């Protein structure tokens, strides 16, 4: 059973490449949302296993979107959230730690293996 994934990123270019790459690597990409409202609507319909959320969504912050996807009704619209960014993890370490995301992936490091590893061993649990 493949991991069902939602990508939340305002960079259409990156989202497309990421979707193609992850698809080839065996992850089922359900859709791409450019902003928080889109993400919540898609997640409510599709109930993804994981949402990849860009921290910097232009006007919005991905941290707030991550909270909207994880908090709220029925234990979260997405079963897990992974934050992604072109920034380095240490730039946002505190905000990532305070978020409900299971972990962080630099956009350049994105792969099905990395996602599976984080879902199996969430960085949050490791840190705790």
């Amino acid at each position, binding site marked *: 059973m493949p991991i069902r994934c939602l990508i939340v990123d305002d960079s259409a270019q990156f989202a497309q490449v990421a979707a193609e790459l992850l698809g080839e690597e065996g992850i089922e990409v359900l859709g791409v949302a450019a902003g928080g409202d889109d993400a919540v609507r898609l997640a409510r319909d599709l109930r993804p296993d994981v949402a990849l959320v860009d921290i910097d969504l232009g006007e919005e*912050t991905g941290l707030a979107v991550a909270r909207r996807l994880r908090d709220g009704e029925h234990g979260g619209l997405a079963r897990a959230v992974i934050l992604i960014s072109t920034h380095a993890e*240490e730039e946002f370490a505190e905000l990532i730690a305070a978020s409900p995301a299971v972990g962080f992936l630099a*956009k*350049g490091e994105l792969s099905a293996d990395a996602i599976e590893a984080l879902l199996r061993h969430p960085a949050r649990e490791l840190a705790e």
Partner: protein
Amino acid sequence: MGARVRSWKASPVAAGAAAFVTAAAVFAGMAVAVPLRGSTVLVVAWCVLCSGGVGVAAWRLGPLFGVPLALSAAVAIDSFYIPPYRSFDSTDWVNYLVTAMYIAIGVFVGAILETTQRRATTSEIARGKLADEQAALRRVATLVSQGATPEEVFAVVAREMRSLLRADVTRVIRFEPDGTATLVGGTGADDRPGPLGPVEPGLAAAEVLRTGRTARVDDYRGISSELVARWFGAARPWPAAVGSPVVVAGSLWGAIVVGSVNGPLPAETEIRVAEFTELLAIAIANASSRAELAASRARVVVAGDQARRRFERNLHDGVQQRLVSVALRLRRIQKRLPGEQDEVSAALSQTVHELNQATEEVREIAQGIHPAILTQGGLAPALRTLALRSPVPVEVVADSEERLPEPVEVAAYYVAAEALTNAAKHAGASRARVRLERGDGLVRLHVSDDGVGGADPSTGTGLIGIRDRVEALGGSLEVRSPRGKGTVLDVALPVAAAADRPQVSG
């Protein structure tokens, strides 16, 4: 003395006649009392009494009475009481003529003395008034030169003018573009600043507004009492007023109106008010150029920050996304290669690796231009992240996680960044501390280290740069850095003021 001077002024002839009659009566009394001259004791007592009477008259009634009384008493005593006696033959008209002449000369001399004395007194009062006026002007000028706010100057001008001109009310009024006026300062009645409503015809201020010149209204009875009450507070009965224009940078800014409830103000009021209006105009012009300067300084800083942030965003949204996307695309290609293409695969791996390095370099540049965490998380997380990157251990205490206006967050962040850089690079500190406090419309940032101290905020571009940045936002920066005792930086930034500042668009 004032009342007597006024009555004398009113009728010099009557006063002279009164002095003449009094002196003649004294002379006649002396002539009638001639039988007393047998006793030396009585004569001496009589002389003493006369001298005393003359002295009292000169003191209380002035030289106009003093001189003729003294003359008639002296002539009478010499003639009737000191041998050889000369009798006053009441049948001979020549005696009356001579006596009258003596007394007339006395009145004449007395009148001259009186006039001279009055002139001296008047000029002394004028000198005193002038000195008071100079002192008041000097106080206002000092205040202006010290860069006091216009509100302070309005209040002081209103107070000084009221006491100097002995007016009942003073009003500093600003004319608004819509034809109304605003009270900005005043004394003598309800003087809370606020709108006065339309400048209705008939008010002294209306004349000033219409003509641009000093105006005088000596009778306000033609104007509704409600209007007078609004413009002059609760002053009753109807005041007389003088209004003087305040001209700032060539255009009519407002007026000073001086009001009196005891009839018209003295003729020189206009001139004296005008001197104050000039000082007031300077104070207003100074304050407005200072405010313009401060605003333009703030705009320059904010525009600079916004340009940096825009630059960082463009890098992030453009180059960085594209670089990452290209790297991912190359990885896809690599995966699709058939098994025997090892050389190509290795070359692709190398390319992806170099691409990732390039991405990393761009990321570092972007981070230096504008720290993304400041936008995403605010000042407190940004300071903690800054502390993590510092080679010196830094303790960060933030008593508020609340988001602040962007210019304030950016300024505080750069202050802390500069201070921590100095602590590591120049001060050789072994630890540092950052404290962020919020309160009284201010943000306070306190950065201290245990390094070598001796930092001079007037040299070295780093500290000057952050001082400029802080002061541009209306804040203050204090640096204490005694040699060998570490460095302490205290920054206070106004939050409301920064939020009110116009944002530079684009």
